[in-house]
């Protein structure tokens, strides 16, 4: 028992040395999570900071000028040009210089004063329909407030309902607050799974794995010796992202570190288990890398990171029961932003534990089978 433990410890030490001794490899383990959380923290947002638009104003009235200056004063809309003829609309949209072109027809003010509806024709560049939708949403809210003021200043009163929105856990609905805590799990999973898969494949390719097999190590011990260092490195990567979230982006941490790290440990068990699983199938480093990639890709895309989980087809939602990242995302976000405790997170802890146990024991079984 003790000798087994000593053997495992020796292997763990060797594994740490193999990965962390080379400065280039230290660099490549900790730099990407740092760079990525910084870049994605700024880049991965569905919010728009500026909407470039052009206007084709055929009315040139006080009302149209008032509406346009309200747009320009919104801080989001940036007028690029005043078009003189309808033909120019094509050029501005086609070349991508304007996301929206607003066309105001010559009866705009007359209609408004007469109390009838005044249409505002808007052409949006749908090459990225998501962006176009967001921009139109912003435009609508500006027009909405213009309408409100117009009504009250022109005596067109009537009852109205105001929708008051309050957002829990993320008062300004900043998409960065959602993104960065999600990256804790995502970046760690990508890093850890590949690192694990490659570490065994490298030994196999260089022939040192065979040498390991002639030592008194049992397959189980080899597996633990491979799993533990990679889990520790994974926790290191998670911590890197966590520190950036708190000290760079200053997103307030509402939960408990104990709950977070308990969840991350289970999650890393699952990620390392998957990595070992891949490495027991792969013969070369190239195979290990590519198989790990093909596995991690759908997990990352279907975890709810980029698109809401609930908008996926039911069948995929069912298949993704096996996706550890999905639970990890839910867990990290809820601990981080809501301050959720063990009791609220049972639905995440249990599947992670099961996935971890299944993949690790599956990998152990495959290891053993390869040896016999």
């Amino acid at each position: 028992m003790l000798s087994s433990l000593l053997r495992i410890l020796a292997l763990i030490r060797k594994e740490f040395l193999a990965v962390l001794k080379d400065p280039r490899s230290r660099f490549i383990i900790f730099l990407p999570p740092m760079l990525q959380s910084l870049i994605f923290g700024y880049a991965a947002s569905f919010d728009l900071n500026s909407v470039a638009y052009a206007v084709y104003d055929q009315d040139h009235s006080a009302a149209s000028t008032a509406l346009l200056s309200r747009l320009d004063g919104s801080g989001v809309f940036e007028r690029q040009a005043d078009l003189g003829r309808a033909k120019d609309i094509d050029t501005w949209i086609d070349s991508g210089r304007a996301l929206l072109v607003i066309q105001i027809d010559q009866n705009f003010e007359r209609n408004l004063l007469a109390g009838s509806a005044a249409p505002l024709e808007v052409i949006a560049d749908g090459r990225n329909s998501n962006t176009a939708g967001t921009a139109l949403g912003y435009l609508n809210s500006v027009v909405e407030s213009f309408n409100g003021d117009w009504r009250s200043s022109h005596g067109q009163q009537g009852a109205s309902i105001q929708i008051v929105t309050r957002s829990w856990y993320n008062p300004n609905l900043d998409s960065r607050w959602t993104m960065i805590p999600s990256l804790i799990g995502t970046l760690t999973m990508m890093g850890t799974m590949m690192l694990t898969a490659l570490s065994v494949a490298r030994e196999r390719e260089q022939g040192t794995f065979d040498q390991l097999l002639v030592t008194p190590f049992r397959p189980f011990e080899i597996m633990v010796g491979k799993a533990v260092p990679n889990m520790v490195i994974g926790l290191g990567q998670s911590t890197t992202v966590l520190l950036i979230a708190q000290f760079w982006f200053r997103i307030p941490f509402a939960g408990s570190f104990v709950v977070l790290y308990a969840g991350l440990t289970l999650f890393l068990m699952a990620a390392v288990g998957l990595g070992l699983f891949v490495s027991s199938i792969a013969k070369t480093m190239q195979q290990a890398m590519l198989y790990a990639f093909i596995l991690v890709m759908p997990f990352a895309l279907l975890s709810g990171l980029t698109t809401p989980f609930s908008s996926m087809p039911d069948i995929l939602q069912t298949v993704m029961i096996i996706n550890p990242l999905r639970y990890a995302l839910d867990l990290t976000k809820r601990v981080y932003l809501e301050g959720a405790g063990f009791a609220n997170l049972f639905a995440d802890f249990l599947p992670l534990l099961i996935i971890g146990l299944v993949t690790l024991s599956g990998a152990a079984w495959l290891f053993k089978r390869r040896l016999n």
Partner: protein
Amino acid sequence: MKDWQAKWRRIWALTRKETRQIVRDPSSIAIGIVFPVMMILLFGFGLSLDITTVSVAVVDEDVSTDSAALIGAFRLSPYFKLTATRSMAEATVLMLNRNVDGILQIPSDFSRRWHAGAADVQILVDGTDSNQARIMQAYSAGPVAIWTAAQAQAGTSIAAGPVIVESRLWFNAANDSHYFLVPGLIVLVMTIIGAFLTAMVVAREWERGTLEALFVTPMQPGEFLVSKFIPYFGLGMIGFVLCLLAGKFLFHVPLRGSLSLLCLASMIYLLVALGIGLLVSTLVKSQFLASQLAMLLTFLPAMMLSGFLYDLRSMPVVIRGITHVLPARYAVALLQTLYLAGNVGSVVWFNLAVLTAMAAALILATRRATVKQIT
């Protein structure tokens, strides 16, 4: 003349060896064919940025005919799935356990204040998923407007605003996110096959010492590179054709530009990706480092910083500056325009020129790096 023949014979032999290696390695086939098909299916059926249903707990503290009618308007909306609750406390529990995405609260003075001229309804959203929260916020305006309009006809309210926005979405009238996902998908698939797969190829030869074995043959560095380019280029084009067919027959994305320009653009981008993969591989000479670098330099930027998923216009200036050195950015702009807007001269020629310059620079750099290490 003899020289040329020998040269081509050597290239041919090396290419054949490389091709056999690809065909015999199941992982190359997996990345060349299984990966594109998987991505097509995922993007086709799994990922959608489009409208989703949000489930909402309703707390009606007013219990009047007005509040019931407003809830009815929400119920009619296809975007909401309502769960009736009796108290705010009950709704809060549902939200904490993630049974609902938000809460619609109608205050007890709703009906009274409505008849007095202005009433409030409260929407509580869970900000941990800010995107979904925003969607819900935007959707809730719909039923409220419908109900207000219905009341207007009954004479208690005025119609929706004097200025009405009539929007038209050019290039994507159906407002279908597949339209912009398919061009991005092509770029993503080519990036993986081109850069990710080849990143390990030269590094492996260094690690195993097979490259040194090649040094003693009359083979020239340029020939060596050409023989690496050809088979992986072929594999990349298979992926491209798969995406092209899926775009047309599965997703029915219209191709408004010319097919030959699209092919040309994709080929040039594939050369860029191959160039990055081979350059990284030649420079670091370690499979582990090469694969991680390729991931960092090509795949993640192609996914996150290319305008494929996240719009470049919403990024801060510094990040937008970084995207200018990333080839994927130009490829996505080019393919999206060719697919959805047509042959817009200014966009097409500029991006094509940038990509060509990048391809040429990368190939030259790889060639130089290879020469240096062999002599």
